[in-house]
């Protein structure tokens, strides 16, 4: 598979803050590539650099074979960009917005009407053509934004947190349209902080403070997780949680109702025994079992894992200090 995007040590600094830190990505053609990360992890900055909106402080990026930002003008005809905020005109109607975009993207005059009609149908906006964008619901607006971003049939589509203001059903429909676009050969880069969305991507890069904490297919990431996961069920989860955090090798405990997801270092050889013995005295009613990783576990392990290494680094550097 050829790569639609290839970046090498792509970096962007804003003053003293490094928003994107030596990013190395390879996005295969005709796939959905997810950038998963919390707010401020550098997702939007990365997308903006790849669109040619921001100049990298360091590193290079090749997008659809064009070097960014030097060849950004040529790239603009081939990409679509759906911004995080609704960026069409709220005081124009659906039809006016789409006609405007068709003209701006220089669609040949005879194609415009047909293209707009088919988009209205695909994105189920036929009934709203005379409605002003500002008065539409979140889901409708998002469909309109995607319709506008794809009006010129871009080879590559950037979606910056496209479903933040959308209900779950609209989100499902939205992803169906994305898969249809991929079937037609479009490459899609999407940023998100939703795990269920990340799971739908063909490939993922987990971003943490501007750096890639992990990347690969979601399934592979789950299988290759650098942690052992123990699920604990307890009557008093909060107290149990505190007890678990004190256990050697445990680096994260997340509560899900009465269940606790415990992430432990892989170096612990008998994790279940470890946990059970710790619980015996403080929380005798708790039951523990080994389980497989979810994407959220991957996310936690990847982001906290980096943090762990940073903390342990100095200790390992001075082995003589240990008795």
């Amino acid at each position, binding site marked *: 598979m050829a790569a639609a995007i290839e970046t090498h040590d792509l970096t962007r600094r804003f003053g003293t803050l490094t928003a994107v830190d030596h990013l190395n990505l390879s996005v295969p053609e005709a796939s959905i590539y997810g950038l998963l990360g919390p707010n401020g992890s550098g997702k939007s900055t990365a997308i903006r650099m790849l669109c040619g909106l921001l100049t990298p402080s360091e590193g290079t990026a090749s997008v659809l074979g064009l070097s960014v930002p030097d060849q950004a003008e040529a790239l603009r005809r081939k990409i679509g960009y759906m911004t995080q905020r609704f*960026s069409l005109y709220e005081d124009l109607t659906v039809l006016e917005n789409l006609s405007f975009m068709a003209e701006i993207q220089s669609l040949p005059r005879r194609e415009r009407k047909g293209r707009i009609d088919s988009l209205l149908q695909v994105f189920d906006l036929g009934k709203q053509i005379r409605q002003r964008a500002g008065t539409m619901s979140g889901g409708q607006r998002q469909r309109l934004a995607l319709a506008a971003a794809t009006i010129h049939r871009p080879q590559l589509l950037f979606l910056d947190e496209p479903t933040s203001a959308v209900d779950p059903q609209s989100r499902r429909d939205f992803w169906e349209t994305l898969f249809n676009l991929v079937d037609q050969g479009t490459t899609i880069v999407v940023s998100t902080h939703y795990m269920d969305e990340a799971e739908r991507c063909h490939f993922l890069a987990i971003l943490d403070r501007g750096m890639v904490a992990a990347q690969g297919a979601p399934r592979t990431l789950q299988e290759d997780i650098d942690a052992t996961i123990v699920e604990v069920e307890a009557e008093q989860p909060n107290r149990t949680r505190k007890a678990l955090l004190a256990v050697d090798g445990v680096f994260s405990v997340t509560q899900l109702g009465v269940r606790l997801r415990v992430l432990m270092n892989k170096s612990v050889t008998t994790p279940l025994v470890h946990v059970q013995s710790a619980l015996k005295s403080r929380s005798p009613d708790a039951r523990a079992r080994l389980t497989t990783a979810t994407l959220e576990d991957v996310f936690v392990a990847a982001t906290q894992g980096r943090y762990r290494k940073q903390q342990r680094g100095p200790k390992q550097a001075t082995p003589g200090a240990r008795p």
Partner: protein
Amino acid sequence: MIISATRILAIFRKELKQLTRDRLTFGMIIGIPMLQMILFGYAINTDVRHLHAAVADQAQTQLSRAMIQDAQASQVLDIVAERATAEELEQLMRDGIVSIGIFIPHDFERRLQQGDRVAAQLLVDGSDPVILGAAQQLARMPVRLDTATGPVATKATFEVRAFYNPERRSAVNIVPGLIGVILTMTMVLFTAVAIVRERERGNLEMLITTPVSTPELMIGKVLPYILIGLIQVTIILGLGALLFQVPVNGSLVDIYLASLLFIGANLTLGLVISAVAKNQFQAMQMTFFFFLPSILLSGFMFPFEGMPLVARYIAEILPLTHFLRLIRGIMLRGAEIAALAPEVLALLAFMVLTMLIAILKFRKSLD
């Protein structure tokens, strides 16, 4: 870079649609010139008229009564009270009831004939220099009476009227200037805000990832405002003729040509502001930073000749200064635009320079 007419037109039409939907802004386009016209035309009037005055006429002769009538006929004064003594006049002035008192002593006629002493006294509230100036002009009336022989009263009336004629001139001077002032205010602000608003609402982030080029975007955005500027010029010219009988001595084509040039200069300045300002508030502040010196230094408010050299140098940079010379020349003196070439060139230079700055400053990126 290929400039596409389709894209410029798309932006132009979009901008017009948005304008017609923004009721407030649309109202301002018509409202600002109308309101300012009426405000400036009626309220700002440097000719003083109908000052409240009181008279103490101790002479009570035919000549003294004739002089009071003449003073009143000049319309500078409205005599609202008559008193017996100078002290009572002073009291009225202290109370703020009148700003001018005319005191005619009982030996008024003898003083006039002998000519060795001032015949009558004018008491003036000097706190307002404009009133003082008016009174000093009025004071020349009895002096003239002094040297007059023959039909005294008729001659005096004539002299005063000649002096206070320019009532009409003030509006005549202000209306052409007002075209410039209103265009400066609306054109700079509208363009600056129009682009900054797109930046604020996030539209620009989407637009700059499309093939739209900077010149296309700027031309498309600016075109509707050229149209609006011409509408405003028409409103001001129409109201000026209707309400203040302002004459148009030169050709209308020249007036619109000069206005078009001036609109262009202001729009490009608005573009520079829009490229620098981060939000609408900043754009507004920058516009006013430019607007104030324009009004004060251009010769709209005060005669250009009376200003210190530094102020005049600054004024030469402002497009309004050159436009005022152009429009007053064309409208009032009936000059042809070709005869005012230096002003035309100055405006053109300003426009080209600001356009260059705008295009350089306005980069198609978010850096």
